[in-house]
Every structure is written in C-alpha cells, then in structure tokens.
C-alpha cells in the first residue's frame, strides 16, 4: 500500500508533466501565412484557362496598379494595411512613370477587385478607369516562430520579459504581374523577395512579428522595384525583337518630337569640324 506522501508526489509529478506539455504546445513551433494569388484571382475554379491572343499595345499606355484580393490568411498573421498597400503601389507606379510610352498610372484600391473576379472583373476595372494594362501585385508572407534554448528561462517568469528566446523567420515574396487586359496576355512579371531573421522575448513576440512583417514587405518591395526596372527594359527589347508577338500602334493624340539620329548628328559635327580645322591649319 503506497503511503499518502508517495501518492501526493506521484500526482504532483503528473500535474507538472502535463503542465509542461501544455506549455510546450502553447509556445512551441508556430507558423502564420498571409497570401494573395494572381492565379486564384484570374482563374478561379477553372480547369481551362482563357487562351491569350496577340496583345495590341496602343501607345501611350494607361496603366493600372492594384493588389489582388487576399486569398489566404492564418488567424495570427499580420496584415498589410491599405496605407501600406498604397505606399507600395506609389513606388511601383513611379517606375512606370519614367517610361515615355506610359501616359497615365491609376492606383486602384483592392476593394475594386472582387475575390476570384478574373478577367471579367478586370474588364470592369478597364471600363471604369480607362486602362489598357494592369499591374497585379500579389504577395506571400510566411512567418515561423521557434523557441531556442534560452526559452527555458521563461520558467522564471521574469525570463519571459527580458530573455529573447523566440526565434522568428519571416519570408516574403511580392510579385508584380503585368497583364494586357483585352488580350488576356501576361506581358512580363517581376518578383521581389526578402528573408528576415530576428529574435524576441516571449512578451514582445507579437510586436516583433509585426515589425518583421512590415520590414519584410518593405525589403521585398525594394527588390521588386529593382527587378521591375530590369524586366521593363527586357520587355522593351522583346517588343522590338518580336514584332509578331506584340502589335504596337500609336494612338491619335500621341507624343511627338523632333529626332535627329546619331548618324546625322555625327556627320554634321564631323563635316563642320573638318571645315573649321582645315581653315585654321592654313
């Protein structure tokens, strides 16, 4: 017959073990995801995608920029605010603004894009804003939180406030896909990625994750803007090299200017220089 103290010890041990298990479950490995997908927006529940035709780019272009609606979010994931989305769209639009064949940029709020709206929704947007081409921005952010060895200090309660035992990994991808709406063809795309590693105290965890999320989007946006410039240049070359794949025409009411051409300028300068030089020689 076990003694009372032995039974008490046994129960206490069991309770402690279960409590620790609970802690481990509560504070163990966690993951959150916040994502939006161009494919889910453009081709919702469709097995056969719409076949694109040859895009007729009527210059100068009116370009729209918008985030596609969110397609997935775990409850604890940090969300991009509308202001942050607008800031990012402004940065993207500034890249397009430098292009001479772009006439106007329209920043379209996400609320105008319906979930799974597809090209039907884009046609509506096209009519509303009078745009020809749209840049659809999508994102995918995953945050992992693990506990390091230092998290043992949480048992002291004070440790949860001062010891950074939480290790956070934040991976972000922001993608810009440029579509010609009438032809349903993707003209080009540019990605931006970032990876942030950080640590935090248990108490400060949610704030740290929020900061990591914001920084992740910011760094990914920087990367996207740099890649976008390269892709735009590549696209310009592609349009010149493949006239059969992209029909380019000028709208009436287009930009005009005088253009001399390098050969002409060099000929004039050389001829003038030669005449002046021979005159001085004598």
């Amino acid at each position: 017959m076990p003694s009372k103290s032995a039974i008490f010890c046994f129960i206490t041990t069991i309770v402690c073990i279960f409590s620790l298990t609970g802690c481990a479950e509560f504070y163990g490995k966690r993951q959150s995801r916040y994502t939006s997908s161009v494919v889910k927006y453009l081709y919702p529940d469709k097995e056969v995608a719409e076949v694109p035709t040859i895009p007729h780019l009527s210059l100068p272009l009116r370009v729209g920029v918008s985030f596609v609606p969110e397609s997935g979010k775990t409850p604890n994931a940090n969300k991009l605010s509308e202001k942050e989305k607008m800031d990012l769209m402004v940065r993207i639009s500034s890249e397009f603004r430098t292009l001479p064949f772009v006439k106007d940029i329209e920043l379209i709020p996400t609320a105008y894009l319906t979930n799974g709206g597809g090209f039907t929704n884009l046609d509506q947007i096209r009519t509303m804003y009078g745009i020809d081409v749209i840049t659809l921005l999508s994102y995918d952010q995953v945050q992992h939180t693990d506990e390091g060895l230092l998290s043992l200090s949480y048992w002291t309660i004070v440790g949860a406030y001062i010891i950074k035992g939480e290790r956070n990994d934040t991976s972000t991808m922001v993608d810009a896909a440029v579509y010609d709406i009438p032809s349903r063809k993707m003209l080009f795309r540019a990605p931006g990625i970032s990876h942030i590693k950080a640590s935090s105290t248990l108490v400060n965890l949610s704030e740290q994750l929020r900061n990591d999320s914001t920084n992740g989007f910011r760094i990914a946006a920087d990367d996207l803007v740099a890649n976008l410039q390269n892709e735009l240049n590549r696209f310009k070359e592609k349009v010149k090299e493949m006239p059969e794949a992209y029909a380019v025409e000028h709208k009436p009411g287009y930009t005009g200017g005088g253009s001399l051409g390098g050969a002409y300028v060099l000929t004039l300068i050389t001829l003038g220089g030669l005449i002046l030089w021979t005159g001085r020689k004598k």
Partner: protein
Amino acid sequence: MDRQKKIKGQTYALTLFIVGISIIAYGCPRFSDLLVYDRQNILCGELWRLLTAPFVHFSLSHMFWDILLFGSAGFAIGAAGYRGFWLVCIFAIIIPSLIFLITLPELERYGGLSGLATGGVAYFCLCSALKTRKKRLLWLAILVGMGAKIVAETTLNAPLFVKTSSIPFRVLPSVHIFGYLGALAAIIWNWPNIRLTEAGLKPRPLARREVTFS
C-alpha cells in the same frame, strides 16, 4: 573687343542654360511633366509650356543627340562670336509650339531640342558662309544637305536617320523646318551688322539700331 567677349559669354551662357535645363528635366520626371508641351494643360492656361517644351526629352538617346548637336552649335557660334543666336532659339522655341497648338489638335505632348539644334547649325553655317568667302561653298553645301534632309523627311513623313521602332514617340520633321527658318530669320534680322563686319566696320548695337526712310 569687349563687346565681342560679351557676345561670346552670352552665347555660351545661353547654350549652357538650355543644356542644363534639358538635363535636369530629363533627370527629374516631375519637373519634366511641368515643362512638357501638354495640349490640354496649355489650353487650361499653363502657357509657359509653349516656351519650355523643347527642354523635355522622351528617351536618353533623344536627349543625348539633341544636346550634342545643340551644344556643339552653340559653342561654335560663341567661339566665332556670331550675334543673334538667342533669336534663333526664341524662334525655334515659340513658333513650333504655337503652330502645333493651332494646327495639330491630335498632338498631345511634344518636346525635344532638335529644332533648336537644327537652327543653331544652320545659323552657324549661314554666318560662316557669309563671313568667309573661301569656305562659303562648303558651308552652303552643308546647308543644302540639311535642307534636303528636312524636305525629304517632311515629304515622306518619316525620319531618315532614326528607326521609328526604336523611339517612343512620333517624329515631327516639321520641327526642323522651324529651326531652319529661325536661322534664316536671325540672319535677315542681323544682316546689316554682318555687312558692316564684312566691310571691316564696327557693328552698331542691335538694340539701338535706327530705321531710316529715304
């Protein structure tokens, strides 16, 4: 002698000013948006665009070649001490914008220094042809060549030395006509002084020129 130096300084300053503004405008798209010929905005009262349109360029190569020719012409005119370059500039800046505003309602945006550059080269050739007898034929040959190019481009309505697929705008050969005409106008306006200089006499100040009736 001082007067000659003053003319040179003014010509260099004018050339540098126009080149500088063009480079700044290209580097700063917002500034460029304020300067470009924009038909709707001009009709809404932004009249300065009629004067500032040539300082805006639509691609790097567009700006580079325009500035190279305009800068070369400006410095050559300055070095030679020819007067009246400012008149060529004024003519090549204002007249095309005004004529496009009246006759080309479909032209929404326009820019580029090529009209001024053409005017500058034509003015330098004309002044040199009038000043030096030995090389007169050579300068006139360049002028005729330039004129032939402009006529051919206007007739064909396409540029001769530029691939249209490589530039993001429609080429307006008529801009060069106005530059060329600006050079002729400046020569006519400056004619009495050129004759005096040729005769070895000191030219009279342009602002105080008297008109006499016989």
